[in-house]
């Protein structure tokens, strides 16, 4: 199955979360398919996304974005996100890492919400109370105020992993971020993998199996599927790519970037 064949699992208007953070293990090959397929009105959700979300926003695929931080670290602000936010082109809901990670974990655990410490006293709280994503409740045991964070259950999670078997048993090597929780909370899970391995790879090494097959709706073999973001044990982030992206965006050449990228001309090799 090619990565393009799974795009039917994502529909206009879906809420979508993607693996990785910043310039690490974002499912970029799948992001490209979303742009190619001209999906619209997506709600995209992630803790600390970067170029993946910025491209989707720039390409007009996004109605709503929920994030704790969305930028390119030392390489600057995310140009399309910034413009779209400042010009009112998208809805956005800023959250905080402790809330979004726990919201995804609540989804994975099948809990309707979880109580999360901190947060009270910040300006994020009234925003989320208004949106219905958080509520201040009394701890029924101590009586103390605490923020109840509603479970986050995305329609689709796309998780890029190092290795998977054809059944969808998947192995994340190195940092996992919230990817296991995303995988287990989402209604539909798509795995893209650097390598397809035989199930024997997991037998006797069950600790390698970070996402067991029964969560997975589709698994696709996509070497360099995270490029230009990094894939531990396979390739580093291509900082040059991201720098060039920022320059082109700043020069008003995002459309040109997208055309070249969709044709594969921005990718190395």
């Amino acid at each position, binding site marked *: 199955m090619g990565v393009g064949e799974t795009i039917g699992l994502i529909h206009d208007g879906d809420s979508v979360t993607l693996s990785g953070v910043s310039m690490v293990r974002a499912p970029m090959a799948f992001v490209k398919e979303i742009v190619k397929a001209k999906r619209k009105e997506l709600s995209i959700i992630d803790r600390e996304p970067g170029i993946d979300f910025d491209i989707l926003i720039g390409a007009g695929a996004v109605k709503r974005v929920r994030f704790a931080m969305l930028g390119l670290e*030392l390489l600057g602000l995310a140009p399309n996100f910034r413009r779209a936010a400042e010009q009112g082109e998208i809805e956005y809901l800023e959250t905080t890492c402790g809330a979004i990670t726990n919201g995804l974990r609540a989804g994975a655990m099948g809990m309707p919400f979880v109580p999360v410490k901190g947060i009270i006293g910040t300006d994020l709280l009234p*925003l989320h109370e208004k949106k219905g994503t958080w509520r201040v409740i009394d701890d029924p045991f101590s009586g103390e105020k605490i923020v109840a964070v509603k479970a986050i259950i995305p329609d689709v999670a796309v998780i890029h992993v190092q290795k998977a078997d054809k059944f969808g048993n998947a192995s994340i090597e190195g940092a996992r971020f919230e990817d296991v929780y995303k995988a287990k909370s989402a209604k539909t899970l798509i795995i893209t993998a650097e390598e397809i391995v035989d199930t024997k790879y997991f037998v006797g090494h069950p600790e390698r199996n970070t996402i067991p097959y029964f969560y997975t709706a589709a698994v696709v073999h996509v070497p360099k599927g995270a490029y230009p973001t990094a894939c531990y044990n396979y390739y580093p982030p291509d900082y040059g790519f991201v720098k060039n992206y920022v320059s082109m965006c700043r020069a008003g050449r995002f459309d040109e970037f997208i055309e070249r990228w969709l044709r594969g001309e921005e990718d190395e090799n």
Partner: protein
Amino acid sequence: MKIKIADIMIKAMAQTLADGDTVLHGLGSPLPAIAMHLAKASHAPDLVFFPVSEGLDPNPDRYRLRLSSADPDHFVGAKAVIELIETFDLASKGKLTAMFLGGAQIDSRGNTNLTCIGDYQRPKIKLPGGAATSFLTPLVKKLILWTTHHSKRVFVDRLNFLTGLGYEEGKDKEVTIITDKAVFMVEKGYLVLKSVHKDVSVKDVVENMSFAPIVGKYGVTTTPTSEDMVLIRNIDPDGIRFSEFEG
């Protein structure tokens, strides 16, 4: 090679950490990452080092600073994966003792804004966002804020958005602010000047803030030793620590 402001800030950051501290740094945090290595290599060998790249206690001998703080190269040789959420769990249990966070705007109580300049709904500048700030600032015992742009734009009378909590009355919480000019602490709700960096005048510090900090007894920020500089340069041979000072 000259000791630069980045190096002085790193040393000041390292000095906020004590042996046994459990410390997290997030994305876009080159100075804190080096500072954590420096503290652990010198006065805080039992510091527990949680990098956003999730490899517990990264080995300084092979660590090289990168443009992303989550670069998986920082994970190589890790002895444990500590998912970020696990450090949050520790924070909720009161067991994450220190956290480094930035501030696009900082007020006189050490509250921070990382969300937006102007109005949230239609901002003049949409900043990247506070990351863990709103969650962690009420939970850690040592909050170390930093800015590489000590200015009236950063030290404001009134934040456009309250992303992070600084001083909180009655709480056992130490708030330190380290800038490219000076080091402050928040005491009883006021920003108190603790030290100015070598070759920086108090006038320069105070005139570049929108409010007046408390200036009493203060010192000169400790300059890194040559031993410190060897470590700093080994961790960051490419000078990535300077990129935050641009623009």
